[in-house]
C-alpha cells in the first residue's frame, strides 16, 4: 500500500497483508509483470484494479502479441498507475489526456497495439472530450475504463459515474448528479467495439479485452470495479470482499437481460454485462494511409 493512500485514509500497513516471498513465482500472470519494478503495487490490498491488470496481461498473451509491439498509455489515478508494473512500452501521462497522447502515438506507430488505461474520472470528467472524439474518429486504440464510481486516488470525491444519492467526500449529503452510462456514451460517439464486465467476472473481462484489442477501430471495455477504501467506507458497503461479491449479485449478463420481460427491463437496476457493439468502420490510421497514397499518387 502506498504512503499517499495510507495518509489519506489514516491506515496502518499490516505487514501480514503483504504477499509471501514466492508470490511472483507462483503465478503465471504475475510472471509476465515487469521484473525491474519494485513491488508491491501502490494499490490497497483487495482493490479490484489488479484483476483488470491480470485480465489485460492474459488477453495480450492469448492474442500472442509481442510485448515490444504493445504500448500502454495511462492518465492519472489509481487505475492509471497500472502500466508501471507491466512489461510493455508504457506511458504515464497527465490526468484525462491518455487518449490524446495515445492518438499521437497510434498515428506515429499504426502497427502498434495502443491501449489506454483510465479511471472513470480520468476518462469521463477531465478526459470526456478526448473520449468522445477518439470514438468519433474511430482511432485504433483500445480504451479500458476502470469504473469504481469514485475518484480513488484523491480520496473519494464524487465522479461522473457516482450513483445518484450515494455519498462521497465532496457529496456529504448524497450525490444529486446523475451518472454517465459509459457504454452508451461510447456507442453514441461511434466506437467500433463496446463491452462491459466486472472485476468479479475476470474471465469475461479477459475475453472482452482480447476482442477489443483485436478490433481495428476504437474499442472500449468498461471494467466495473469498486473502491472499498473510499467509496465503500463512506457508503458503508463493507470490505473489499463484500464489494467484490456484490458485483456478482448486482450484475446481469446480456443474455439473461434479454430474457427479461419489457417491464422487468424498465425496472432493471442491475449492471448489464456484455458486448454491446462490434462493427467495422474505417479506422483512422488506415484512412490516413490511403490519403497519403492518394496524394503521393499525384491527386490534388
Amino acid at each position: 500500500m502506498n504512503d499517499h493512500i495510507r495518509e489519506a485514509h489514516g491506515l496502518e500497513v499490516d505487514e501480514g497483508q503483504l504477499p509471501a516471498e514466492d508470490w511472483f513465482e507462483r503465478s503465471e500472470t504475475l510472471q509476465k509483470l515487469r521484473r525491474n519494478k519494485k513491488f508491491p503495487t501502490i494499490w490497497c490490498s483487495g482493490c479490484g484494479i489488479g484483476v483488470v491488470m491480470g485480465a489485460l496481461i492474459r488477453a495480450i498473451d492469448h492474442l500472442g502479441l509481442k510485448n515490444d509491439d504493445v504500448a500502454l498509455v495511462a492518465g492519472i489515478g489509481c487505475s492509471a498507475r497500472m502500466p508501471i508494473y507491466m512489461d510493455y512500452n508504457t506511458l504515464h501521462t497527465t490526468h484525462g489526456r491518455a487518449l490524446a497522447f495515445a492518438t499521437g502515438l497510434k498515428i506515429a506507430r499504426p502497427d502498434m497495439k495502443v491501449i489506454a488505461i483510465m479511471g472513470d474520472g480520468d476518462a469521463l470528467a477531465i478526459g470526456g472530450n478526448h473520449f468522445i472524439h477518439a470514438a468519433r474518429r474511430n482511432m485504433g486504440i483500445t480504451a479500458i475504463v476502470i469504473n469504481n464510481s469514485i475518484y480513488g486516488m484523491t480520496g473519494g470525491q464524487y465522479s461522473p459515474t457516482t450513483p445518484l444519492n450515494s455519498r462521497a467526500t465532496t457529496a456529504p449529503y448524497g450525490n444529486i448528479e446523475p451518472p454517465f452510462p459509459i457504454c452508451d456514451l461510447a456507442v453514441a460517439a461511434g466506437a467500433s467495439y463496446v463491452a462491459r464486465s466486472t472485476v468479479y467476472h475476470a474471465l469475461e473481462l479477459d475475453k472482452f479485452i482480447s476482442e477489443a484489442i483485436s478490433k481495428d477501430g476504437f474499442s472500449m471495455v468498461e471494467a466495473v470495479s469498486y473502491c472499498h477504501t473510499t467509496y465503500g467506507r463512506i457508503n458503508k458497503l463493507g470490505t473489499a470482499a463484500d464489494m467484490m461479491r456484490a458485483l456478482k449479485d448486482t450484475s446481469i449478463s446480456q443474455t439473461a437481460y434479454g430474457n427479461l420481460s419489457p417491464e422487468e427491463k424498465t425496472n432493471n437496476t442491475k449492471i448489464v454485462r456484455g458486448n454491446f457493439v462490434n462493427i467495422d468502420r474505417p479506422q483512422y490510421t488506415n484512412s490516413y494511409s490511403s490519403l497519403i497514397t492518394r496524394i503521393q499518387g499525384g491527386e490534388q
Partner: protein
Amino acid sequence: MSIKLMQGNDAIGWGAIAAGCRFYAGYPITPSTEVAEILSRELPKVGGKFIQMEDEIASMAAIIGASVGGLKSMTATSGPGFSLMQENIGYAAMTEIPCVIVDVQRLGPSTGQPTAASQGDVMQARWGTHGDHPIIALSPTSVRQAFDLTVKAFELSEKYRTPVILLTDEIIGHMREPVDLPDFKTIQLPEYRLTKKDGEYIPYRNEPGDVPPLANFGVGYRYHITALFHDQQGFSTQRVDEIDPWLERFNSKLDKHLDDILMLEEDRMPGAQLAILSYGASARTSRHAMKLARARGQKVDLMTLLTIWPFPEAQVEALGERVDRIIVPEMNLGQLAYEVERMVGRKKVKRVTRANGEMVTPQMVLDALEG
C-alpha cells in the same frame, strides 16, 4: 529554390517540413492558423501526418505521443491555446520528450485582440507551466528567420530533449517578404535518438550536463515514461537520493551548451554609450530607430536576441558594462526588460512598451534615446 513571396506562418510550415517534422496536431486559432493549413496540405505529400485535434490540450498531448513513437512533431497556436497547452508542455519538459510549439503571439490577456500583434507571452513561455524546468524559446525577426529558426528549433529539441517554443508574433506570422529558401535536401539533422535496440538502455541516466538519448517506443526497449519524479529507469520515486541527482542533471542540462543554444545579432558602434536591445517584430522597429539615430549623429549599439530563453545573461551583462543605457522596446509592458534589468540593474534600463496591439514606433525609441 527560387524567390517566393510568403508570410512568416508559411515559412514556419516549410521550416518544419525541411527539418523532418512528420507530425502536426493543432487546433485553429488566429493568428497561427496558416501554419496548420500549410501542413495539412504538405505533410501527406512527404508521408507525414496532420490531425486537427479537439482542443489545444489534446494537440499538445498528441505531439508528445507521436514524438515518443518516433516522429518529429509540432503544434502551433496563439495566446488562449498556449495557455491551455501549459500542463503538457511541462510534461514534455519533465519527461524530456522533444517537440516544437509555435506561439504566434496575439494581444492578450484572455481573448484580447485575435488579429493584433503582441509580445505578451515572453514570461509565459518561460514560466507558464508549474515548477522549475529548463526550456528553450526562439524568436524570429523576419520571414526567412522564421524558416531558419523553425529548423533550429527541431534540432535543439532533439539534441537536448526539451520542448522548444518558437515564440513569434502576429506581425512576423502575417508579414509577407520575398524569401529564397534553401534546398531542403541540404538540411539534414543528425539522428539523436535510439531507433534500434543496441545493448542496455537507461532512459534517464544521470550524469550532470548529460542528455541521455531517447529510445523510440517499439524498438525493443520496453521502458516507462512518467512525469512523476522518476529514477534512472523512469520509474516514479519519492527517494530524495534518487531525485537530487536527477534534478541536478535536468536543471543544468542546457547550461553547458549555451554556445550552441544562444543566438543573437549585434551591430556595434565604437564608443557607443547607448544600446537598443530587442527581439521579434520589435527588433525591426529597433533596427530602423538605430539607423535614424546614427544618421543624426548618435552612437548606438543594437542587440537582437534570437534566443530569448535561456536568457543570454553573460552577453547582456557584457553589454551593460560597455554602455550607460539600454533601451528595451517590446510589445508588452516590459517582460523581457525584467531580465535585462536583472543583469544590468534598473537604472541602466529604459523600457519602451506598448500593449495595445500597435507596434512600438521608431519615434518612441528615438525619444527614449534622447531622454
